[in-house]
């Protein structure tokens, strides 16, 4: 039978279908190869000197090893040593060389961010006269260097949503000390900047390094083939401008698909918007900043400043001075010893409103102490071009700029505000309280009563002489009671004035008592009405519910009663006993009449 063989063939085909199809699919799976190619644009590819590539694989050391000092925080940069890349432009005396790149740290590297960061410049410091660093926060992704502004002192044009984070100008290239001097140092041909500015993870920053070279030098930068910060952003823009003559300016921009040799050493972390800058300050060191302007309330008011701080024992000796814009005269806080925070009001009221650039707050430390100043920033916050988002510290006659706003409160108040203190000298003298002692007016009341009775008797023609005597006695008692009972003054005139004043006070008090009594009655009536309304709204539902239950019971039992009666009539009719049936019907009718009568009587 051929059918048997056909079935076997079908079975074999099934096996092949089950096994071969997945196998062939797996065997034929395309292998995806990931290749990363770093390409330098052709126009820039050959602009380097063959002898300057100093990276030597034989003696390769890691990039962090080349740091001075060795990294002390969270270090980010190219792992292997960087290469020196030299441009072939020979610069005249008037020149400017800028390196622009962007970086986006991620949270696994620096958590939320860093507040103090040592950054190594990619520009080789050799023959550099002056260097500067500008850091921008990029609001929206994407940036382009479209050229250099014309003129002898042009600067690169960066298009993008730029918000200034920090500006470090005039880096002192002769400063070789890490621990002393400015927040920068140059060692072994590399320049470092200690940046006191909040750098957040997940935010793209643009770093622009600018350098001015000596004449007849060629600009050179360190580059790396690695992705610094592993952010997928590998780009270096180099903008070169130089003027051989005032009317002969050369400028060009190189856009290289490679990262510059920048590396970062994050010294201090960053909180979520608020962080502290811990500084050891000595007597004479200062913290200076510009408060935000406050709206003018329409009248003169005291200016009050509050600045929190933290020290080991919670106290700080410091003088606080504030410049006020309209007078230009600073006022100095009365106190110099503070606990946990500085709080002081101006000694007099000012009408003007302190505007940022005209009013500076300066805290001058009067002891040697480590102070933690709280600083506020937001990754999407203000621009440091507004000076109110910066603080300036002078430590040992060296200026340091912090690109964040000290946490403080600057407000206007109608009264002076003082920090708590156990020293009475810290407070303004209080006005002594004068207790208002009520004067006994018994004599006045009796005299008034006698006078009224006497006048009533006179008006009714009753015994004129005793009545007049009573009136005179009453008036005399009224007057003398004041002389005897009040303590207003010594002389008779003062006594009389005090008597009149006390009489007026008595009338006023009586009227007040009457008014209070009427008010009390009114409140009682109001309370009673409110109670009644509450009671109705509360118990009305209960009464209605009881009525519903009564009606339900009535309908239920009445219906059953009527049905029983009707069946009784029907049964009597079935028995053929018409008389009994009629009697049953009559009983039902009379019962109904009784019920209706009762209801009518109730209603």
């Amino acid at each position, binding site marked *: 039978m051929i059918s048997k063989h056909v079935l076997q063939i079908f079975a074999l085909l099934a096996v092949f279908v089950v096994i071969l199809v997945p196998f062939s699919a797996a065997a034929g799976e395309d292998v995806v190869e990931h290749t990363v190619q770093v390409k330098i644009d052709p126009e820039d590819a050959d602009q380097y000197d063959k002898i300057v590539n100093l990276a030597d694989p034989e003696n390769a050391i890691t990039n962090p090893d080349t740091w001075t000092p060795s990294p002390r925080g969270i270090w980010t940069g190219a792992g292997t040593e960087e290469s020196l890349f030299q441009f072939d432009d020979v610069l005249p005396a008037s020149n400017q060389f800028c390196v622009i790149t962007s970086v986006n740290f991620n949270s696994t590297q620096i958590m939320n961010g860093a507040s103090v960061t040592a950054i190594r410049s990619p520009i080789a410091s050799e023959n550099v006269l002056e260097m500067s660093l500008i850091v921008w926060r990029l609001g929206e992704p994407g940036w382009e260097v479209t050229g250099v502004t014309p003129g002898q002192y042009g600067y690169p044009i960066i298009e993008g949503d730029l918000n200034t984070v920090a500006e470090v100008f005039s880096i002192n290239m002769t400063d070789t000390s890490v621990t002393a001097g400015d927040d920068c140092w140059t060692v072994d041909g590399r320049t470092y900047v200690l940046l006191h500015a909040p750098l957040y993870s997940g935010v793209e920053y643009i770093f622009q390094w600018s350098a001015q070279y000596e004449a007849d030098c060629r600009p050179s930068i360190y580059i790396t083939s690695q992705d610094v910060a592993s952010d997928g952003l590998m780009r270096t823009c180099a903008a070169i401008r130089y003027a051989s003559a005032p009317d002969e300016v050369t400028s060009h921009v190189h856009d290289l698909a490679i990262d510059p040799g920048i590396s970062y050493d994050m010294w201090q972390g960053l909180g979520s918007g608020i962080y502290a800058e811990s500084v050891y300050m000595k007597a004479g060191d200062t913290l200076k900043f510009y408060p935000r302007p406050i709206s003018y309330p329409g009248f003169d008011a005291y200016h009050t400043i509050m600045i929190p701080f933290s020290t080991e024992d919670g106290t700080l000796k410091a003088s606080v001075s504030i410049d006020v814009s309209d007078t230009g005269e600073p006022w100095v806080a009365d106190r110099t010893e503070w606990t946990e925070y500085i709080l002081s009001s101006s000694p007099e009221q000012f009408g003007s409103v302190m505007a940022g650039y005209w009013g500076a707050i300066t805290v001058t430390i009067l002891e040697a102490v480590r102070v933690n100043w709280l600083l506020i920033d937001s990754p999407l916050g203000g621009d440091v071009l507004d000076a109110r988002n910066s603080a300036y510290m002078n430590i040992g006659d060296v200026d340091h700029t912090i690109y964040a706003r000290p946490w403080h409160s600057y407000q206007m108040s109608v009264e002076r505000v003082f920090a708590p203190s156990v020293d009475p000298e810290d407070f303004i003298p209080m006005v002594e309280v004068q207790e208002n002692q009520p004067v006994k007016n018994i004599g006045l009341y009796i005299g008034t009563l006698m006078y009224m009775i006497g006048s009533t008797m006179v008006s009714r023609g009753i015994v004129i002489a005793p009545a007049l005597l009573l009136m005179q006695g009453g008036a005399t008692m009224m007057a003398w009671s004041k002389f005897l009972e009040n303590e207003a003054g010594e002389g008779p005139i003062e006594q009389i004035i005090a008597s009149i004043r006390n009489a007026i006070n008595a009338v006023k008090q009586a009227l007040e008592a009457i008014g209070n009594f009427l008010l009390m009655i009114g409140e009682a009536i109001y309370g009673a009405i409110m109670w009644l309304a509450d009671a109705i709204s509360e118990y009305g539902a209960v009464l209605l*519910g009881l009525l*519903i239950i009564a009606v339900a*019971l009535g309908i*239920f039992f009445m*219906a059953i009663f009527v049905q029983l009666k009707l*069946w009784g009539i029907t*049964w009597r*009719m*079935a028995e*053929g006993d018409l008389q009994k049936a009629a009697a049953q019907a009559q009983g039902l009718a009379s019962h109904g009449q009784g019920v209706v009568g009762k209801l009518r009587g109730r209603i």
Partner: protein
Amino acid sequence: MDFMAISTWIFDILILQLLPMVSVILLIVGIFGVFNRLPKGIDKAAGAMGRQFGNSFRWRK
């Protein structure tokens, strides 16, 4: 559950549920009673009619 809700619930139970059920039971009992009494009634009526007829046809002396 407030008092108003309790009273309306009692109304529902008594009038809408118990009363129809009791009425049906009374209907069954009533119909049963009618059929139970009908023979006696018919017997009574027939007897009365028979007596009436007997009286009518009785030979008067």
